[in-house]
């Protein structure tokens, strides 16, 4: 394979600029995470969780959609095996994220990758993918910034605040914050779409996600869309063989001077 994640070749000034853009790109997602972390803390308490249990969910599971689903199922009296099956299904898409991140992070030590895997979320994947593509190599500091600094810490701090004071906080939906997550996912997909193969993969992903979601289950639709979309993209005639080293692109502009 190409040297997707070999030693950095980026000018320090350019690297700082890219990381700054990563942070600014993430600002909307951080606001969204904080809003829904607060709501999760409140939801967990109202579902009968103790503060320790609610906080343990955000630290140990660290997967928002399945946390909300589990809180609802616990409140409804579902048995644990049913919750575990749904959790595995909802979080199956992480397999695709992990596979896509692997070439970029392959030079990291096993110990680091073990921890990196735990903090791999929708947000970490989306932000890191754009950041790595911009640089042309897998910047581990950028990954930690995206996964821990901009996702894990805000989500967990917000959960704690939600557990102890959630009843005083307005519903993020009233403020329109619930649109940030899908808008950010769509915007980051556009940031990654630099050719017709990417556009075809994304369009196929959308079609699969909607069709299978309507016929069966939305979590299954996301996994199938993420797996089948690239196959359709690959079926199109492409440019020269993909070499991650040469695959740098300007990515998303954070609106900052570079």
């Amino acid at each position, binding site marked *: 394979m190409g040297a997707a994640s070999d030693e950095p070749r980026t000018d320090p000034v350019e690297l700082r600029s890219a990381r700054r853009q990563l942070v*600014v*790109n993430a600002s909307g997602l951080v606001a969204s995470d904080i809003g829904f972390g607060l709501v999760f803390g409140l939801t967990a308490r109202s579902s009968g969780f103790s*503060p*320790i*249990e609610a906080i*343990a969910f955000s630290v*140990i*599971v660290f997967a928002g959609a399945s946390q909300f689903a589990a809180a609802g199922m*616990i409140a409804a009296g579902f048995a*644990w095996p049913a*919750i*575990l099956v749904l*959790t595995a299904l909802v*979080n199956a898409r992480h*397999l*695709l*994220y*992990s*596979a896509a*991140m692997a*070439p970029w992070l*392959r030079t990291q030590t096993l110990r680091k990758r*073990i921890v990196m*895997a*735990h903090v*791999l979320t929708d947000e970490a994947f*989306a932000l890191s*993918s754009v950041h790595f593509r911009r640089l042309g190599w897998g910047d581990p500091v950028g990954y930690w910034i995206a996964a821990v600094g901009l996702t894990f810490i805000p989500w967990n701090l917000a959960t704690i605040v939600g557990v102890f004071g959630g009843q005083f906080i307005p519903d993020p939906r*009233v*403020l*329109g914050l*619930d*649109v*940030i997550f899908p*808008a*950010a*996912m769509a*915007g980051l*997909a556009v940031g990654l779409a630099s050719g017709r193969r*990417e556009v075809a*993969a*994304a369009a196929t*992903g959308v079609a699969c*996600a*909607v069709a299978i*979601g*309507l016929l069966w289950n*939305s979590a299954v639709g*996301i996994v199938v*869309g993420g797996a089948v*979309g*690239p*196959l359709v993209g*690959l079926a199109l005639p492409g440019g020269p*063989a993909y070499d*991650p080293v040469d695959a740098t692109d300007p*990515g998303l*502009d*954070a*609106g900052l001077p570079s």
Partner: protein
Amino acid sequence: MSTNLVALAVLMALVTYPSRAIPLLAPGFDRLPPRALEYLRLVGPAVLASIAASQIFLVPATNGAASTFSINVEWLAVAACVLIVAWRRNLLLGLIMAVIIVAGARATGLAA
């Protein structure tokens, strides 16, 4: 203070971790052929677009069954964000516009 659900959290993490970790930790991913790397490069736009579509077009059923189709103001907001990102390459600006559209529509009673 109850800690019974901490065990459930651990079990949920145990069923989630393999999907997060196996490709990252598997040594075979060091030597993938170019075609497989190209496939993985396309996973990003495909799965992110799938998530966005699932969130704005579908209303999930609470029991894990099939979702229902939804027509809502989020379509317009996400479309505006996509257009701004495609035009200006500025995600933050796109997100601000999306929030303004949704919050404005709800504040004025145009959307639920």
